[in-house]
């Protein structure tokens, strides 16, 4: 069964450092999402792509976060500089289209020291 792949699974970094997360969606899925899940809370959408275009980044802290999906397939989420409050699980999800079921990857757990 096809799955959303994410790497790394775990990342420990010091504040002010740069970190990057990678996501490979299910083949053929045009819509890709990045979520942040703080411990004990539900996921919150950071950015949504339709193919290579951003359709919603209203909750993305653009002063330090950036996301790209250059060829409309895999995607990278970057944080620079990382802050203590960025410690969370970063989840990637994909769907066939905007109104289709979202399938989540296993996530990247980030710890900022």
């Amino acid at each position: 069964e096809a799955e959303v792949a994410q790497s790394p699974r775990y990342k420990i970094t010091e504040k002010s450092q740069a970190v990057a997360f990678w996501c490979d969606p299910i083949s053929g899925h045009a819509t890709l999402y990045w979520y942040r899940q703080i411990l004990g809370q539900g996921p919150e959408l950071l950015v949504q792509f339709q193919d290579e275009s951003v359709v919603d980044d209203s909750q993305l802290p653009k002063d330090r976060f950036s996301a790209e999906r250059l060829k409309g397939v895999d995607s990278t989420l970057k944080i620079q500089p990382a802050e203590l409050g960025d410690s969370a699980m970063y989840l990637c999800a994909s769907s066939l289209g905007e109104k289709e079921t979202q399938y989540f990857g296993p996530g990247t757990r980030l710890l900022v020291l």
Partner: protein
Amino acid sequence: QQQVKQSPQSLIVQKGGISIINCAYENTAFDYFPWYQQFPGKGPALLIAIRPDVSEKKEGRFTISFNKSAKQFSLHIMDSQPGDSATYFCAASSQGYQKVTFGIGTKLQVIP
């Protein structure tokens, strides 16, 4: 502002019992209500979903009850099993915009 309110935050149920998780929403534009199941170290997985044109949907031991006038919906897990121990999230979205708003989550523990 929490658009989807979920309760309880934690739940302990005996094996064979019924687990009930409740959610309430505020945005009347929401028209799609999925439930996700998340095991530790894994991403959420879609469990079951309902649209407001029906009041109930059942899939195996999992049932969603929906009350449009009260803007509430709930998940019932019948004959709960230890393997059901996970965190459950209710969520909501509107068809015109697929952004999914999640509840805070309910950590379910089914004890033998």
